[in-house]
């Protein structure tokens, strides 16, 4: 069953069309990668789904319930949590208070609340910094805190906006492991990520945004082969020269031949 | 009919003084995100300075405008560079607080030097008017409106085409890009505040010529500049002109219809309604 359904979604900023006619749905329990070059409208899409911004056109349904008119705090309480690409943390609160506040808003109290906060801090490896004022955290820690805070909402759907940017290879492996564990718990995820290694590793499906439009949707291995996706990322000249190069060296089969420009 | 035409003229001409004041206020706000609560008191100080210049140098107030402008330009530069720059990057309301403190100090110094009594600038033309089509055009206010139009054009040309003007505009879009462009932001800020202070002082001269004033007259002037700036849009070149005319006419018409005691209800009611309906300001960027 579709946990999230997006229908004909569009967003204009002034006269600029940032998103146009986006439609897709997410099946429960799946992990979907959302990729696209800078400025493609990925974060805007996440903002619209999470209610931080209002769509100009189109509709969003979460478990068949319309979201596009709800304030974002209602959406969060329904079990749709998110992180922010540019971290947003409560810098006047300690790390622990940050996480506890989120769990508190969905009605957890007393011992259960504290136990849940402990569990999440351990899960995100922040337990030893629980009493630190979050203003003093490093960027990777801030990203982890955002994840812990989102998980405290007991989400059914998690929107992750570049949670892994700036991590070193070791941290990256740990993060991938963590996301895979969350998937096993049945949390549906929409993951924005620039690192293809991560996307290939965790996604069941990849959707590609380019200049505000959905240009591809499919299995990760399929999607990266599509030439319009490579063009979107690397520019058409690169793809052409690369294709020519590969033909010469006999590796042309790596690219999806049907989609190539001749 | 004739009465209403005269009311309209009065309103439009009142808009001139309001507009010059807002030109300064809007520039600081638009470029530095700075709300200068001492703005009105700067203007009152300029009015007192004009009195001194008239008394001691015998220089006519209208001819003294360039001198007053330069004095406030220099003073403004120093105030921004050594005082406001120290806190402007911390948070919004530390600067509010600082300018309020400056307002307090200036107003009370003026009480010490000039007493709390009302003064006015005595010139032969202060209370006379031009007659045109059977309507009265008070000289000072008419000249103020002309000044506003000329200053708006000059300011626009300056910001658009001069090197320092472009530096100011670049900085208004964010300090980070401006710094990457190699601009010395403290100096750009100081220059902006200097320019604003000079403009504010110019407005102060006209205010002093057409109104009696005391050291306590600054508050309402600041609030007036607020309202005009919001009406016209923060940081736009023509906003102060438009906003000044709108508020001038509304106040003039309103005080005839409802009585002069309702002018404040109109002014502040209008301000509240605009703020609530257009939360990010009428045209400007969000605070």
């Amino acid at each position, binding site marked *: 069953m579709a946990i999230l359904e997006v229908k004909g979604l569009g967003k204009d900023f002034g006269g600029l069309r940032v998103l146009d006619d986006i439609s897709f749905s997410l099946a429960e329990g799946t992990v979907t990668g959302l990729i696209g070059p800078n400025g493609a409208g990925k974060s805007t899409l996440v903002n619209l789904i999470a209610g*931080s911004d209002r769509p100009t056109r189109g509709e969003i349904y979460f478990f068949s319930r319309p979201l596009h008119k709800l*304030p*974002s*705090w209602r959406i*969060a*309480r329904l079990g749709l*949590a998110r992180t*922010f690409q540019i971290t*947003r943390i*409560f*810098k*006047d*609160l*300690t790390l622990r208070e940050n996480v*506890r*506040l*989120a769990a508190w*808003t969905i009605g957890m109290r007393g011992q259960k609340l504290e136990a849940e906060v402990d569990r999440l801090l351990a899960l995100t490896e922040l337990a030893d910094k629980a009493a630190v*004022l979050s*203003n*003093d955290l490093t960027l990777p820690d801030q990203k982890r805190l955002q994840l812990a805070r*989102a998980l*405290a*909402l007991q989400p059914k759907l998690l929107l992750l906006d570049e949670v892994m940017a700036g991590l070193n290879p070791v941290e990256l492996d740990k993060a991938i492991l963590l996301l895979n564990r969350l998937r096993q718990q049945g949390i549906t995820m929409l993951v924005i990520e620039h690192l293809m290694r991560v996307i290939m590793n965790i996604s069941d499906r990849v959707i590609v945004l380019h200049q505000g439009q959905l240009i591809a949707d499919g299995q990760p291995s399929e999607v990266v082969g599509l030439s319009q996706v490579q063009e979107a990322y690397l520019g058409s000249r690169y793809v052409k020269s690369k294709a020519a190069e590969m033909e010469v060296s006999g590796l042309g089969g790596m690219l999806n031949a049907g989609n190539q420009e001749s | 009919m004739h009465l209403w035409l005269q009311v309209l003229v009065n309103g439009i001409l009142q808009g001139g003084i309001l507009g010059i004041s807002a030109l300064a206020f809007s520039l600081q*706000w638009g470029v530095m995100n700075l*709300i200068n609560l001492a703005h009105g008191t700067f203007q009152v100080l300029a009015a007192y300075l004009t009195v001194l210049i008239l008394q001691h140098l015998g220089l006519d107030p209208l001819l003294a405008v360039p001198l007053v402008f330069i004095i406030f330009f220099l003073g403004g530069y120093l105030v921004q560079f050594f*005082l406001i720059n*120290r*806190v*402007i*990057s911390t948070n919004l*309301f530390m600067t*509010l*607080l*600082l300018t309020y*403190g400056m307002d*307090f100090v*200036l*107003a*009370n110094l003026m*009480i*010490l030097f000039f007493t709390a009594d009302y003064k006015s600038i005595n010139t032969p033309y202060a209370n006379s008017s031009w007659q045109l089509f059977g309507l009265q055009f008070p000289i000072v206010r008419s000249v103020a409106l002309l000044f506003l139009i000329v200053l708006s054009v000059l300011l626009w040309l300056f910001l658009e085409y001069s090197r320092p003007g472009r530096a100011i505009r670049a900085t208004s879009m964010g300090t980070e890009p401006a*710094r990457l462009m190699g601009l*010395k*932001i*403290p100096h750009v800020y100081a220059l902006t505040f200097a320019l604003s202070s000079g403009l504010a002082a110019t407005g102060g001269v006209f205010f002093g010529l057409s109104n009696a004033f005391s050291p306590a007259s600054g508050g309402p002037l600041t*609030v007036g500049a607020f309202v005009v700036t919001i009406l016209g849009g923060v940081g736009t070149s023509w906003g102060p002109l438009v906003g000044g005319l709108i508020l001038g006419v509304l106040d003039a018409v309103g005080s005839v219809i409802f009585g002069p*005691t*309702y002018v*404040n*209800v109109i002014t*502040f*009611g209008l301000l*509240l309604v605009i*703020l*609530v309906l257009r*939360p*990010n*300001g009428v045209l400007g960027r969000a*605070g």
Partner: protein
Amino acid sequence: MKRQRNMFLAACVLLLALCIPPLTNDYIVQVGTEMAMYAALAGGWNLIGGLTGYPSFGNVAFFGLGAMLAGALSVNAHWPYWLAAIASVLGTGVFALLLGLPLLRLKGHYFSIATLALAQATLAVVTNTKFLGGGMGMSLPIVGSPGIFYYVMLSIAVLSALITYLLIHSEYGNTLLAIKSDEVAAQAVGINTVLAKSSAFALSGLLGAMAGVVYAIWQSYIDPPTVFEPSITVLMLVMTMMGGAGTVAGPILGAVLIGILTQLAMAVSQNASSLVLGLGIIAVVLFLPKGIMGSRRSGKGGKRRGKNTFPLRG
């Protein structure tokens, strides 16, 4: 440990404050009443300005409306004092709640200006309303003794501090701090920010109105320009900032310090007192930007790493 020490200190200060009327003269009691009034007002301001991060420039509206409403209900509607007082405080609270809903959608300067306009508009409406005393103001029947008013103001100040204390140590207080840090993120973790902000504003209004009501009965003559004086708001703000925004003791400390400073300056010359206050404000901004109590839990390791800061040496 630390909490016990603070409790002990608070008890000592309160005990000392209780001893003032029997041990000193009427003049000091009057000054003390004023300090207590400002401690209550600053405490109220702290809820919206310090904890929630919405720097209101119009809190005097609640003080003024509370005072004028209480006066009008007792003098013009002939209600008994206690009923007029309760009705006035509740009425002003509702006023704050309703106006908070649209005004708290505004951010930064826009909020400050809108609240400033709110105070001025309220003044203008009160001045033009006969029932509320109009421009002439009104005389209230004289009751009580100076000592009584001191104790009443003191209890409002204590109430104000108590509310702040309870807030800071509750999840609701964390909600307000979260809004101050980042409102978008606060909504994203499920906080109903509109409700939280409006209720903080209403609490702020209730405290302001309480002080206003007691002020009206204490002074027995009130007129709109006095009770809506914009500098009253600024005093609340300055005292809170000076003592430490977002702390329990900050507003009280600020009120007492500014009170003493004003008295000292007045002893030198009547005119100088305002001048000293102005210089005091500038000094606080330049040298004590976080207040005497410091901001919450920052300090030793608290390097400033705000996103909006930029080094001005450049």
